[in-house]
Each structure stands twice: as structure tokens, then as C-alpha cells.
């Protein structure tokens, strides 16, 4: 390829010597029999390049502040051409990288490629894996939804369990006593500057060392001439990268990177769970309780990393054949099986993720309150405040709750005081409705009975009961999510009207005098459909 070229390239070569450099990079002789297993590193380079590219575009829109982080991610997903594909590429790309890095490392372990003289290449690889996991951890917080927020609360609490330094490390991670604005901006700085800088440094080191010692090649040297890296091996790299890219693109186009409701530090009802590749560690916490907790949170992960780092010195014999290294292979397989088992249990025990796009009874109740005079007195065309749903809701959930429950806060001497402030359940219902507004969801088409039932449930029943992850469940009242599987409409009607007539020990108050017979019938019919 050096022979061809035009005047400009010849001039450039005479000034830079790039052709020799390129030739040196591409003509590396590979041992005979270097096959498909040796393409995983290139797949990682390809996937990481996609993360860099998509990450840079995401940064054009993302802002790392609690006031706007969630909105900016929502805008990326809904307001940009291919925005949802862009975010999904970055989101699923992270999982692809963890898998590819794991396979790459397993290939090195099974082929014994970490052995002398490649110990430092192996060490740089272990650091790269840790950097990748740090990327995953810091990136998880950035969308600032309930998932991100509560998972990070757990992560920083785990750091707290480390002996002696734990509490200080945890505070350092959070930038204060709680997960908040300072946590978000420092994790962002890590994710977009410090970790990429570290990653690039270690990739360059890793590749330099790979070239210095040459590719380890097949376990047993095979007869035959070495073949050049380009194009013989690069074509394999390229084809596998293309296959993986096609897979990632399918996930990005067909899948949906989740965006839960905007983070609400006051709503601890959200059950956090980590991304699948941290699930096995998370699941370990179930088996080490009380004083033993640091064993799972700090002890086992630290031990694993130390064993990985020390591997070339723990297994020093020259032979690379996996059949002659039963201890290393056996322990690797055992750890893999353990991780797989814990991940499977973790997936099974994970509570179902609430779907933020479903209109819950509380949201329907909130909508009916928002359309009533309580809100439309001011939130009207030409009124004192913007019509709900036409402008971005700047305030967080706790401000909105305060805005509705405290008339002084609504109208500090400026606007007419509303006759009645809303009660706690009504304000929560409006907050649930506002969460749907933030997602630009259109209200569902409901029959009058269904609407009446959902409004009553949202503003009455959910004071004591939980339905589909919303409401209260702390006072012994049963969860009504699947009540229809146990009770029929007639029974429910009778029970709601007067629980004492069904069971003389009933603790639920009688609603016969509070709700009309029509309302009770609508509620009973609705609940009976919740199977």
C-alpha cells in the first residue's frame, strides 16, 4: 500500500513518515492458528468507540443537575431524531462491553495467556475491567430517575460498611451526607472525563504490551508460517465487530432503555435493584447479615480482585494447556457458576419494575382534581398561572405537594386563597398525575364508572392500601393489586359498605355513610377486575 499514492500523500509521508508507522501497526506477524478467539479485544475496542461517540452526543444535551437531568434525558429520548436509538446504543452498549470484557478475560484464562512474559499486560487488563465497572456504576446515576437514585443510595450505603474508612469513603462518593446535587455532578465528572482518560491510558498501555510480546496464539504452537495482522486477521475482527454491532443495534432499535419517574428522595417506596452485572454481588447481601455484612460488601469483591491481580504469580508453571491446569480452570468454572446462580436468583427475586406509562388510579384521580376548580381557578388560559400540561413543570414533587396542601404557600398574599386546601391523598394523586404529564402521556379513555372508581380509590382507599406499587402499605391493610383473584364484586360491595357485617373483627372503617351506593358499586366492580 506504500507504493501507491499521490503527491499530497507523498509529501505528508516525507514530513511524518506515517506509511512506515502504519506498516508497523498492520504488518504484525501473528502465529499460525490465531483464530476467532483472538478477536474479542477488537470487539471491545469497537464497542468502546461507540460509547465514546454516543456519549459525546449525549453530552450535548445532558445536564448534570437534579433540576434538569431527568428532563434532559427525556428530551434526548423523545425530542431528537434517533434520540432513543442514541441513548439505547449507549445503555445497551454498556452491557455488551461487560459481556465482551468477561469473555475476553475468560479466553485469556483458558488459554493461559497471562503467563510469563505477559504478566503486566494481564494487570493492565484487570484495571481496564475495573474501569469499565466504574463507568457502569457512575453512568447508572446520571438519568436521575427513581431507579438511578435509589440504586445509588444503596451503592453508597454499601461503601459505608467498609471497616474504618467506610463512612469517609461514602461521604466522599456522595459529596456530603446524602445522595444529591453534588453526587450527581461529581459522578458525571468521573464518567465523562476522569474514567475516559484512565481508560484510554490503559488501552494504549495494554495494546503496546500486546505488541511488545506479540499475541500469545494457540495453546500449543502449530506448524505453519506466521500470517500478517492485516488483512488476514483484521477481516475476522471486522466481521465479528459487525455481528456484535448488528446485535447492539437491534437492542437499540427494538429495546427500550428504561426511564422511571423522576428521582424523588422523599418517596422511599421504590425498591432499588442494580444492573444485571452487579446483581450477583447484590444478591450476596442476602446471605451475610448483621456483623457479617462487610464480608459480602467488601470482603468477597476485594478478594476476587486480589486473586485476579495475583493470577500470573499464583499459576506460574509454563504449561498453557487448560487440561494441565485443573486448579485455575476449576476455580474459574466454580466462580462463574456461582455468579450465574446468584444472578438467576437475583433476577427471580427482583420485584417487577413499575411501568411509569400506566395510568394508576392515583394519576386518574389527580387528573380529575387538576381539571377541577381547585386548580383551574389559576391554571387557566389567560389565568394567573400556566395551563397544566402546556409548560414544563419546574418544581420537584415535594414543592408540588407543599404548593397544594399549604394555602399560604400557594398564595402568599397575591392570589385569592382557595376555599379548601387539598388533603394529603389528593396532593399525592396530583403528584402522580404530574409524573404522567412529565412523560407527555395522554390520559386514558375511561367510562364514567371506571373514572369514578379510580378517583375514589386514588383519593380514599390508597390512604391505607397499596395498589400496583402506589399508596400506603404500612398499617396492615392488604395490597389490592390482585384482590379480584380472591373476592368478587358482590363481596367487595358488601365489605366496603359495612365491613362489620362480613367479619365482626374487621378493622376497616365502614364507608356506607361516606361514599354513595353508586361510588361503592363502581369501586367494587373495578377492584373485582384486578386479577
Amino acid at each position, binding site marked *: 500500500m506504500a507504493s501507491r499514492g499521490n503527491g499530497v500523500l507523498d509529501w505528508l509521508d516525507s514530513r511524518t513518515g506515517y506509511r512506515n508507522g502504519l506498516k508497523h501497526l498492520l504488518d504484525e506477524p501473528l502465529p499460525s492458528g490465531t483464530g476467532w478467539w483472538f478477536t474479542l479485544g477488537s470487539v471491545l475496542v469497537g464497542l468502546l468507540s461507540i460509547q465514546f461517540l454516543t456519549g459525546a452526543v449525549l453530552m450535548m444535551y445532558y445536564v448534570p443537575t437534579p433540576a434538569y437531568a431527568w428532563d434532559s434525558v*427525556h428530551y434526548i429520548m423523545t425530542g431528537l431524531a434517533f434520540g432513543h436509538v*442514541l441513548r439505547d446504543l449507549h445503555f445497551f452498549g454498556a452491557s455488551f462491553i461487560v459481556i465482551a470484557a468477561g469473555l475476553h478475560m475468560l479466553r485469556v484464562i483458558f488459554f493461559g495467556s497471562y503467563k510469563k512474559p505477559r504478566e503486566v499486560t494481564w494487570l493492565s487488563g484487570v484495571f481496564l475491567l475495573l474501569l469499565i465497572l466504574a463507568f457502569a456504576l457512575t453512568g447508572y446515576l446520571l438519568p436521575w430517575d427513581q431507579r438511578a437514585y435509589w440504586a445509588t443510595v444503596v451503592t453508597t450505603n454499601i461503601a459505608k460498611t467498609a471497616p474504618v474508612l467506610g463512612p469517609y469513603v461514602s461521604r466522599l462518593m456522595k459529596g456530603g451526607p446524602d445522595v444529591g446535587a453534588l453526587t450527581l455532578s461529581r459522578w458525571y465528572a468521573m464518567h465523562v472525563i476522569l474514567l475516559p482518560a484512565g481508560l484510554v491510558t490503559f488501552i494504549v498501555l495494554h495494546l503496546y504490551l500486546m505488541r511488545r510480546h506479540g499475541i500469545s496464539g494457540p495453546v500449543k504452537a502449530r506448524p505453519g508460517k506466521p500470517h500478517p495482522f492485516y488483512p488476514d486477521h483484521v477481516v475476522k475482527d471486522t466481521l465479528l465487530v*459487525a455481528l456484535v*454491532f448488528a446485535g447492539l443495534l437491534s437492542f437499540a432499535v427494538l429495546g427500550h432503555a428504561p426511564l422511571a419517574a423522576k428521582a424523588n428522595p422523599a418517596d422511599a417506596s421504590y425498591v432499588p435493584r442494580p444492573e444485571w452485572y452487579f446483581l450477583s454481588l447484590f444478591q450476596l447481601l442476602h446471605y451475610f447479615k448483621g456483623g457479617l455484612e462487610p464480608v459480602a460488601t467488601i470482603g468477597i469483591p476485594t478478594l476476587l480482585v486480589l486473586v485476579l491481580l495475583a493470577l500470573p504469580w499464583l499459576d506460574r508453571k509454563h504449561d498453557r494447556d487448560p487440561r494441565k491446569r485443573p486448579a485455575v480452570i476449576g476455580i474459574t468454572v466454580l466462580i462463574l457458576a456461582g455468579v450465574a446462580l446468584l444472578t438467576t436468583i437475583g433476577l427471580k427475586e427482583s420485584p417487577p419494575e413499575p411501568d411509569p406509562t400506566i395510568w394508576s388510579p392515583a394519576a386518574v384521580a389527580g387528573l380529575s382534581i387538576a381539571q377541577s376548580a381547585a386548580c383551574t381557578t389559576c391554571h387557566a388560559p*389567560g389565568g394567573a398561572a400556566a395551563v397544566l400540561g402546556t409548560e414544563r413543570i419546574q418544581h420537584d414533587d415535594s414543592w408540588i405537594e407543599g404548593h397544594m396542601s399549604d394555602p399560604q404557600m400557594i398564595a402568599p398574599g397575591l392570589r385569592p386563597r382557595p376555599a379548601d386546601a387539598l388533603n394529603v391523598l389528593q396532593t399525592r394523586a396530583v403528584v402522580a398525575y404530574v409524573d404522567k404529564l412529565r412523560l407527555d402521556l395522554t390520559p386514558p379513555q375511561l367510562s364514567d364508572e371506571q373514572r369514578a372508581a379510580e378517583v375514589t380509590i386514588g383519593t380514599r382507599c390508597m390512604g391505607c392500601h397499596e395498589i400496583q406499587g402506589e399508596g400506603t402499605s404500612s398499617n396492615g391493610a392488604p395490597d389490592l393489586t390482585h384482590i379480584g383473584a380472591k373476592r368478587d364484586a358482590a363481596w367487595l360491595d358488601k365489605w366496603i359498605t359495612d365491613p362489620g357485617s362480613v367479619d365482626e373483627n374487621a378493622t376497616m372503617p365502614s364507608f356506607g355513610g361516606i361514599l354513595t351506593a353508586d361510588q361503592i358499586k363502581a369501586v367494587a366492580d373495578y377492584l373485582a377486575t384486578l386479577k
Partner: protein
Amino acid sequence: MSEHEHEEHQINRRGLLRWIINVVVGGIGAVLAVIVGGAVGSPSFRKERSRWLPAGRILGLQPEQPQPVTLRVVRKEGYYEAVDHEVVFLIRGAGDKVTAMSSVCTHLGCHVSWDPQGRVFRCPCHGGVYDITGKVIAGPPPRPLATYSTRIDPDNHEVFVEL
């Protein structure tokens, strides 16, 4: 196969492999370019939607007396909403037709005000003068004052201005 033929075969094979690499890498690059191009370029070339903003009741307007009203204009800037306050003059003409006229001088963008004695709009910066229809009658402005579409809600006589 002679030595020469073998060499030729090798060269052809290499050429094919290079071609495959270039096509596949080009394909991946093209897909990424479309996605990135769309995401980077789409807000730059989006048409801004116009809005009908309520500007008060027609009954509050004196005929042929320009009345300045301040409109709250919410401009969507991606995830952010910028709020501008724009002053327009509402002029109630014959047959309850309402004209909405921009208060921004077409010379250098200062705000004009209505002079009820002279019955003209005057710009304080460089002496631009406009008549009640917005036509330039003195000074440097190159164009008449801009006007906006209006419509009147038949039920409550609310005037809406399209911005």
C-alpha cells in the same frame, strides 16, 4: 500451481479481504453517521411552532388607541423552557377588527412607544417615527413595524395573538 500463480492468488485474496473490511467498516460508519447526524442536527433545523397567546378582552380596548400588552412567551429550548416577555400593541379598528403590532423598531431593535398627542409611534433611540398602521413616516427604520395575526374568541371576546 507455479510460484508466480501462487503469488497472484495471494494478491487477489488480499484484495478481496481489504474490500470486505472497507465495505463492512464503511457500513457501520454510515449507520452511526445517520444516528449521530440526526441527533446532533435535528434541533438545529426544527421549525418553531407558533402559539396563540391570550392578550386580554377586546372590550377593554378603546377604538383607534394602541394599547400595549405584555405577552408571556414560552420558548422551548430542548429540555429547557425560556420565558420571554414581549410587548405588542393591540389596536381596535373598524368592525371590531384587532391588529397586533410589534413594539420592536425595525431599525436597531429598540422599543417604540405610542405618542397619543402626535398619534404616532416614536422610537427613543434614533428618532424613528411610524404611523398607527406601522408605516415609517420619519427617521432611519427600513421597514414598517411587524404585525401578528389575531383572532377573537366569539364566546368570551378574548383576543389571541399568534407569536
